């Protein structure tokens, strides 16, 4: 809850950030009330909250895609005033280009930057293979399942080896089994590279399973309600979900949401 110290050598530092949407003809919508948030280099943080709590807006402000109404965001020592380009972004929709095959959808990361793609083919192929997509390189997106498509989107976000990974409900559109598989994939990739990662989700289990720290947000206007370190050792396997420690975290967080009135029994 306490505002972070300005001296902290954090990779991401949001200071008193607010976002007010001016909806014409209506009252102003306070999407994000003053938020202070820091993320260390190499840390995996989850922003957890109900729909419409401003967590995606906060992520968007970190990326420089949405200007903050007040306050400031610093990433890697520089104030964010324009879209950051040295990051990977995964959205809920896979946003694959339907006219491009899988490999070309990953390499679009370089094409958009005006770079040649040929020297990055090997990296792209290696990444695709590491998430179980060997043999799929020449398929078009419509020939793939939702989980495979989202894996391609994850490869696209990683292929240029960015230091920061932003995940905006990346598994929200997938079925439960596929979601479990992708959580394992995401965790393996993160454990390997230790990139700074911020995950936006409304799934308590997902946040606890993936993150080192879970930030619990209040309903709109979004504020930080609790900041809970998850001290489960990595690598975490699916079995961890049945351990008392894991269930303890899930219960603690659910109680927070109950206290906030987000969940009620009757």
């Amino acid at each position, binding site marked *: 809850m306490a505002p972070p110290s300005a001296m902290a050598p954090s990779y991401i530092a949001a200071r008193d950030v607010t976002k007010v949407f001016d909806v014409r003809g209506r009252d102003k919508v306070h999407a994000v009330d003053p938020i202070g948030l820091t993320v260390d280099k190499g840390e995996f943080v989850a922003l957890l909250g109900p729909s419409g709590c401003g967590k995606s807006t906060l992520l968007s402000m970190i*990326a420089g*895609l949405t200007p903050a109404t007040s306050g400031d965001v610093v990433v890697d020592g520089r104030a964010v005033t324009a879209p950051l*380009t040295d*990051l990977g972004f995964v959205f809920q*929709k896979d946003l694959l*280009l339907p*006219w491009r095959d899988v490999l070309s959808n990953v390499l679009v990361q370089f*094409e958009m*930057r005006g770079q040649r793609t040929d020297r990055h083919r090997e990296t792209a192929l290696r990444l695709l293979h590491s998430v179980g997509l060997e043999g799929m390189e020449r398929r078009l997106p*419509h020939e793939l399942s939702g989980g495979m498509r989202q894996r391609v989107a994850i490869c696209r976000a990683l292929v240029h080896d960015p230091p920061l990974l932003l995940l905006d409900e990346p598994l929200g559109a997938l079925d439960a089994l596929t979601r479990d598989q992708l959580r394992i994939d995401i965790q393996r990739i993160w454990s390997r590279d230790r990139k700074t990662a911020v995950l936006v989700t409304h799934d308590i289990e997902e946040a606890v399973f993936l993150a080192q720290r879970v930030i619990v947000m209040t309903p709109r206007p979004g504020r930080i309600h609790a900041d809970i370190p998850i001290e489960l050792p990595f690598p975490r396997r699916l079995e961890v979900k049945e351990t008392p420690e894991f269930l303890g975290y899930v219960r603690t967080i659910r109680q927070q949401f109950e206290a906030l009135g987000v969940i009620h029994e009757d």
Partner: protein
Amino acid sequence: MRTDVIRRALGNALWPFISFGAILLAWELVAQLGGVPDYMLPSVSQVVERGWETRDLLITHGRWTILEIVGGFALSALIAIPLGMVIVTSRLLERLLYPPIVALNSVPKVGLAPLFVVWFGFGMAPTIAMTALVTFFPLLVNTVMGLRSVDAEMIHLARVMAATRLRLFLKVRLPHALPSIFAGLKVATSLAVIGALVSEFIASDRGWGYVLVSAGGQLDTALIFAVMILLSAVATAFFYLVAAVERLVVPWHSSQRQPH
């Protein structure tokens, strides 16, 4: 496998063949036995006979009309599609240009044919202008809609990939808009035929539209039917030609996929 494909194609062609055959047969029977005078409803055989007799005339005038249809269509596409691209590049241009263009669309355009005679004279020019005018709006609107319909998050993604506006346009917006642009082109094919025909009614002494008017004046109903059948065939062929180009250009789009 190849014979399979051919058999399926033949199977697909069989049913419309039967329905068309039934319609022609019914027409022939009504015309021959129904007591309807020939000048009201000529029989199919009379129409075919009249069409064959006048084949030189039909070919000469047909060439003229087809040239006008394709010319007007092409002119319209060359203006409307780039204009649509310009309109979506800036909010200002969109607010400036789009409302008056949409307002102009409510003008019943074929009513302008006499004005086009005054402006462009008699012959091919007013007809090409009319054809271009009636096909203009669906082409423009479909281009604008297609270019605009890109997901907002896709734009965000492109921005964090450091895409310039030009690259965003070429690699995302334009290919994304192609199915919509082709939908506009397909609608425009039948409008182009109507535009050319209406203009020829009053602004030309050549073309199938002119043939229709003069045949009507002489109660030459068989010739009218012959021309109408040819016009429908040309409109259908034009539509499928555009559809074939679409299959080549946007094979990835869901509308082009073969059902499994």
